[in-house]
């Protein structure tokens, strides 16, 4: 609820006028789609005869049936309580999605033969690269944030140059620059460390700003109180400021982790066998790209959904202890 108040308006789905407009609009749209040569035409065969020869009449009949089902569905869902509404709409959208993929005529035996390798090799690599990178990025971010808040001109200049540079370049370019550029300076870096370094530096720059905002949100009085107790800077940071800033820092950090999980696909260009690389490569010999891309897409989605659940738990945890 954006803004909870006591005025409860009648929901739109209970207004006959609104539903009539929706019925008419969906009737026009579905009729114009010309669905009589699809599987829906087959369902309607008893009513409209041979689907391909039914012409305008067939299209209108199918449009009417589908728009009635569509509107009826919405009216029925409108009577359900909020939680069940959410669940039903989610399930219906998911079913539509799966039906959409199913209509591609995918080779499921091929997917079954490859999916375990995609998980054991691809998901594993994706997860460990992301996990190491987010850990290192958090460390970079703490130092970056402290430097950005300091009154030391050098520290501030270096930190702001760093965030400006690494937030200003596309991550793909950073991957290339580190992988191809560092060897020019004499250090030959492997593909996985190069990927981790690029992700760390890029996300470290974004997270510097998150940490900075978190630290800045703590009341000035906290600093003054700890100084009056004789706490030095390090102790104040560890014992007073960071514990209070964490509830503000951790939720956006979880968000960054979810984003990084997907951005780690960019390191596939330097030959790391992570999920995206396998999705592009495994189906290549048999020309089954759609199968592998859709499988990888669903795996990414499942991973991020798990992470979203974990993140909302963490958020709830911090909400309860901060109140």
């Amino acid at each position: 609820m954006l803004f909870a108040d006591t005025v409860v308006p009648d929901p739109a789905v209970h207004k006959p006028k609104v539903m009539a407009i929706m019925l008419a609009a969906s009737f026009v749209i579905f009729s114009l789609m010309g669905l009589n040569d699809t599987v829906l035409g087959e369902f309607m065969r008893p009513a409209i005869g041979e689907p391909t020869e039914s012409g305008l009449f067939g299209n209108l009949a199918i449009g009417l049936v589908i728009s009635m089902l569509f509107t009826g569905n919405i009216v029925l869902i409108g009577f359900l309580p909020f939680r069940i509404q959410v669940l039903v709409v989610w399930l219906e959208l998911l079913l539509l999605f799966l039906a959409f993929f199913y209509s591609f005529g995918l080779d499921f035996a091929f997917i079954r033969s490859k999916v375990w390798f995609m998980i054991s090799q691809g998901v594993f690599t994706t997860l460990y690269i992301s996990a190491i990178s987010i850990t290192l990025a958090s460390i970079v971010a703490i130092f970056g944030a402290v430097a950005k808040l300091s009154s030391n001109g050098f520290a501030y200049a270096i930190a702001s140059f760093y965030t400006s540079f690494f937030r200003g370049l596309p991550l793909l370019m950073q991957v290339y620059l580190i992988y191809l550029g560092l060897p020019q300076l004499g250090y030959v870096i492997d593909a996985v460390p190069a990927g981790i370094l690029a992700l760390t530096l890029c996300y470290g720059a974004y997270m510097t700003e998150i940490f900075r905002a978190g630290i800045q949100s703590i009341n000035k009085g906290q600093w003054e109180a700890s100084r009056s107790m004789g706490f030095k800077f390090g102790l104040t940071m560890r014992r007073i400021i960071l514990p209070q800033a964490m509830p503000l820092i951790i939720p956006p950090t979880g968000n960054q982790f979810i984003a990084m999980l997907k951005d780690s696909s960019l390191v596939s260009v330097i030959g790391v066998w992570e999920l995206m690389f396998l999705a592009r490569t495994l189906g290549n010999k048999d020309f089954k790209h759609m199968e592998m891309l859709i499988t990888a897409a669903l795996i990414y989605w499942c991973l991020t959904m798990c992470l979203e659940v974990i993140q909302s738990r963490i958020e709830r945890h911090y909400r309860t202890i901060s109140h």
Partner: protein
Amino acid sequence: MKLNRRIFTFATTAALTLCTSMSFAGEALDRVMAAGVLNVATDANWAPQSFINDNNEMDGFDIDVAREIAKRLSVEVEFITPSWDIITAGKWNGRWDLSVGSMTPTKSRAEVLAFPGVYYYTPASIAVHKDSPFEEVSDLNGKAIGAGTATTFELYLQHDLQIDAEGVPAFEYQLTAENKSYKDSTAAMDDLRLGDGVRLNGMVGSLPAILSAIEANYPLRVLGDPVFYEPLALAIDRGDAEFNDKLAGILADMKADGTLTALSVKWYGIDFSSTGG
């Protein structure tokens, strides 16, 4: 005095850096023999030359050639799969020792890489959609033609293909078309299969790759005769003449005793190893 010393330090550092970045003769060969491992860079998206097979291992014509070379060097082989533009960029810095990746020895590539020898030739052809009206290559003038980026096929479309190898038949540019770049040939074929003129009117690629796509039910057909023959060579980083000669010797042996012919027939059904088509 102080300034002089600074200049001296700078000069020495610069000289040292230059020395370390220069390759010494025999460096790559020494590295391979010392480690007992030949690191080979290949593209994993290039069936039937190199791809990931049903057992999730690297397989294909290039892979077999690389395995055979490693066997004759009496070392193990390891495969690394960076993207193609990183391989052709050169300056490998010892990340891998050899590319067995069906690379055409062009003049511009010869500036950054060395080519110990050509191991086979493939015809490059033009594919169009099955239902398209085109009959001759020249019909495609001004149309949208796809090719993998940084490939010889794209250079052909850009009229900038200079092949630097012996035994290659001369060719001429038969069409002037709008060049569309793709990540690789397969991506171009994926767009071409959508229909004639939907995104592309045709694509230039290697004949074996086009034929295997047609076998996999891609609605394509080959237009006319091959537009040029492509010599495909081993590639190594510049600066190791000894490694170059060693590989050239192994390649000559493999040609002479029929190993290359056998491998070519195994993967293509045709002997591409010597005739030039």
